[in-house]
């Protein structure tokens, strides 16, 4: 017998209740779900201030803007001149006209859809790795931890939030949910058909404490994570 058959045979032979049917399994899971939802961690509010506070605590740089225009001018100052940027091809970023603004700053910027980041394209990888900023839009923010949810798609590569020195994420305020529990349905949808191969929760800049528990940021991923919460995106 193959290792697979052996494993399944062994597991079938030792279900605690040998007769446990799928229905019983479903009922048991449902009662666990019920207890899980009664827990405190799923019952907090979707509080923007708490989000900003927790994110800052985790070493993230946070800003709060009331409009897209304000966010765009903040970003323009933040990035400065002569920088190399990669932008997710997101309608929000397009509406901010970031490409145009950055060009005005003598920054070199490319959109994810312009760059061929084929697995074989070594040049594109090195281009990404040499970038100063990767700019993306977050799908959700978790108020109780200050983390954001991002995902790989046709418009957003995995690398754009991973290889550059700094990751800037734009987060519309109405995407903030209380906790990971409320984001579970989004993760489910993302994992399904029409979703993504990689959904990632980002809870701060890349960091390590492997040397004497001394905190150092920017080990492998971005050394800086900046989140700009935008109140009004219309």
């Amino acid at each position: 017998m193959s290792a697979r058959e052996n494993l399944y045979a062994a597991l079938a032979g030792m279900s605690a209740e040998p007769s446990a049917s799928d229905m019983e399994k479903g009922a048991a899971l449902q009662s666990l779900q019920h207890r899980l939802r009664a827990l405190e961690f799923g019952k907090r509010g979707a509080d923007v201030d708490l989000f900003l506070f927790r994110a800052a605590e985790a070493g993230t740089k946070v800003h709060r803007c009331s409009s897209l225009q304000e966010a765009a001018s903040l970003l323009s100052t933040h990035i400065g001149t002569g920088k190399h940027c990669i932008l997710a091809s997101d309608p929000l970023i397009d509406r901010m006209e970031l490409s145009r603004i950055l060009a005005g700053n003598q920054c070199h910027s490319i959109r994810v859809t312009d760059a061929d980041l084929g697995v074989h394209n070594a040049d594109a990888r090195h281009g990404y790795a040499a970038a100063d900023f990767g700019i993306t839009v977050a799908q959700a923010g978790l108020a109780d931890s200050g983390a954001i949810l991002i995902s790989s798609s046709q418009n957003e590569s995995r690398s754009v939030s991973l290889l550059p020195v700094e990751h800037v994420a734009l987060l519309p305020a109405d995407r903030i949910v209380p906790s990971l529990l409320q984001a579970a349905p989004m993760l489910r949808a993302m994992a399904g058909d029409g979703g993504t191969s990689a959904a990632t929760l980002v809870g701060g800049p890349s960091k390590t404490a492997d040397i004497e528990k001394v905190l150092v940021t920017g080990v492998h991923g971005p050394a800086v994570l900046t989140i700009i919460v935008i109140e009004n995106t219309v």
Partner: protein
Amino acid sequence: MTKFTTPIEPENIKLLIAERIHDPQLRGNIARATKTSLVKRAVVVEDFPDWEEMRGVAHDIKRHVMDNAGKYLAQFEERASSAGAQVHFAADAEQASRIVCDIAARHGRRVAVKSKSMTGEEIDLTHALERAGLEAIETDLGEYIIQLAGEPPSHITAPALHKSRGEIGQLFAEKLGIAYSDDPEYLTKVARRILREDFLRADVGVSGVNFAVAESGSICIVENEGNARLSTTMPKVHIAVMGFEKLLPDFESLSLFLNMLGRSATGQRITCYTSVLTGPRRAGEHDGPEELHIVVLDNGRTRMLSDPQLREALFCIRCGACMNVCPVYQKIGGHGYGSIYPGPIGSIITPVFRGVERAAAMPFASSLCGACSEICPVRIDLHHLLMTWRERISEKRQGKIAERIAMRLFQFIAARTAYFDFSGRLFRMFAPLLRDSDRGLRTPVWGRTRAFPAPPEKSFKQLWAEKIEREGEA
């Protein structure tokens, strides 16, 4: 640089401990690191007034999944496959590393970047890859450090915890040819620069799995550095190794466990990166691996599952909190146990993975204080499991004849009040003859490395009687 010479194997535990227990530098490194983690953990656990109920729910979810392991594994396999992942099965460590190496070495692939994985350590994957002719690079900073030093990890979440910055500085100067510095920031930068190039040229990425979500066939990987994201994004092929006990039913359960893992492990509300990967890169996506292989490992786990007592050990989410809090671990560190799974949980599962003959001393390296059971986020009854092992091992061994007679004698005396009082009096009378300076008593076996406390002048019974008498007078 390493002054220790005994091979780190569970059967050498006594020698390993003897080497380490008198090393003040090592003890300082470990004490500092474990204490930092515990303090940080305590702060963020405060977020939840119902932490105890969270532990209960987490425990019961794991129990439920293990009770229905076959069904959840089948669901996971089906969903992962339909998302395009290839699921493989391995009965033991050797089979697992053969499967990984076969895939890794296909089509002339040469360079493998590895992110931290205890399951990978369990099957000794890095060495297997090297034997298969690949360049296998550890990319977690802690793992990178100990790979340079040629040592196994000493903690499941902080593998280089036993090393001071000075030792790491020397190591980097020696192996990487850079100028000596003990600045963690600088040393980290050096590692980043070197490893970044490795990520960009790697053919294969190898990772572990923290949680496997049955409802979607996703694997979830938790980390802080970004090396796991890079290992699972840059190379064309991603191979993930997991024990089937990593299964969770759904994303709601995952959200609970993620809330508990970061807090218990490093005192973080959430770790920096939590990747939920479902199949390889999809059509239209710009990067990510073309192939995703998931290797599901047994290696003694079904045996553990069929054991009514030990099966609870499969609930472990490898947070390392039981190590940080263990007074024995704090003194001897991970290498003192001789197993890549050290501390309380390591002493329970190593006898299963490595054979009870080889690891028989591990369950005895504990004070049974119960701190581990109290801190464990999935509420594994660790110290009772340690006792279970002790019972089994002692029963099999039958003990030395003298020990057996002594225990019988004690049983006989302790059950009879008059005999017990009388022997107590005898002991107090003759104890001064065994006195060994002020350290206590010199006793043959137990006292070779420890001082047996000298008995008080009066027994508790006497003191109690006197107290009652005094109070009666007052």
